[in-house]
């Protein structure tokens, strides 16, 4: 299983990565600061789960557009928004994300979000 984290914030991504590693030992977890590189990765590698921040300056691609792009290529991907604000809730539900997580993410939040997938 390939799990991708897209976030400019290293500590946030690191935190999420550690929680995921504890929950799922055989998944491959990759972190990208630049969401455009998630697309480059997805060109030749399947993506099963995507955790993405919404705004990742200075890169042009936002998390919601990224989710739509990855879904277009991998329709079964589970996508989660991971962000500090509730501002994008409406737009995120409009594109039917699998979950909207507020930072700092907790183990329980992730557990509920990821375990629901099985």
């Amino acid at each position, binding site marked *: 299983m390939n799990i991708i984290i897209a976030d400019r914030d290293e500590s946030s991504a690191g935190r999420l990565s550690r929680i995921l590693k504890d929950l799922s030992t055989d998944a491959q977890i990759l972190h990208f600061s*630049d969401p*455009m*590189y998630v*697309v*480059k990765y997805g*060109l*030749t590698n399947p993506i099963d789960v995507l955790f993405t921040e*919404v*705004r990742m*300056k*200075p*890169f*042009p691609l*936002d998390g*919601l*557009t990224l989710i739509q*792009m990855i879904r*277009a*290529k991998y329709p079964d991907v589970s996508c989660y928004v991971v962000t500090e604000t509730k*501002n*994008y809730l409406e*737009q995120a539900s409009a594109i039917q994300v699998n979950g909207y997580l507020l930072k700092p993410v907790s183990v329980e939040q992730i557990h509920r979000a990821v375990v629901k997938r099985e």
Partner: protein
Amino acid sequence: MEILLADDERLALEVLKEAVHKACPDASLYDFQKTGELLEFVVEHPCDVAFLDIEMRSMNGIELAKRLKEINPSVNIVFATGYSEYMGQAFSMHVSGYLLKPVTWQAVKEELENLRHPVAQERDTGLRIQTFGNFEVFYNGRPLRFARSKAKELFAYLIHKRGTGCGTREIAALLFEDQPYSLTLQKQVQTIMSAMMKSLKEVGAEDCIIRTYNYTAVDVERIENCDYYRFLKWDVKAVNEYTGEYMMNYSWAEFVIGYLDNKLM
């Protein structure tokens, strides 16, 4: 030109890649050590030329060539081999050419200039917009000259916004960041807008812009060749063209997620 490279030996593959790059710097190269991955890739992404090592562990080069031709009959196959005895077997396949290892860029160039199925080079026609690296606009391969630099900057901003509109205030804030909004500023924006439209009109591209009272946006349907827009549609070439830089000549590109910001308001 889209070129595939296959060799199960990493070092040989690197040598091949360097030689092909030197022979044809503008080509897009896709290298594979594993034949399975190569075949998966090529189904979705046809290539013009394939440089194949004849003797690979997982599937021999001749088998691979046959499979590639099944997928795309006009692909040019060039066998790279250190063993000339295989030449005979490959001969009946009507491949484009052969290279003896170690390959040299001169030999590669020779093969590329004498392909069995010549590749029609894409002519750069019409309007082409580049956002990766610096923002540049080309028409029929030549840089489009905007009457004023701020006119080009405005066009860049509209492209960045991907079809979401903006009004005079927003444009003024972008182009004249420190100045408070005033009638004078409004007029300046209008002048710049006219300059932009004039430059686009000169190449028949004025319909790229949608304008209504106090609302200006780019018509995405009319933008046929923009690297970022192609990227968003998973265009392989565009995805490969991105190397971490976007509209480097404008500092606002870092601060504005144009498309998203507007949706929030």
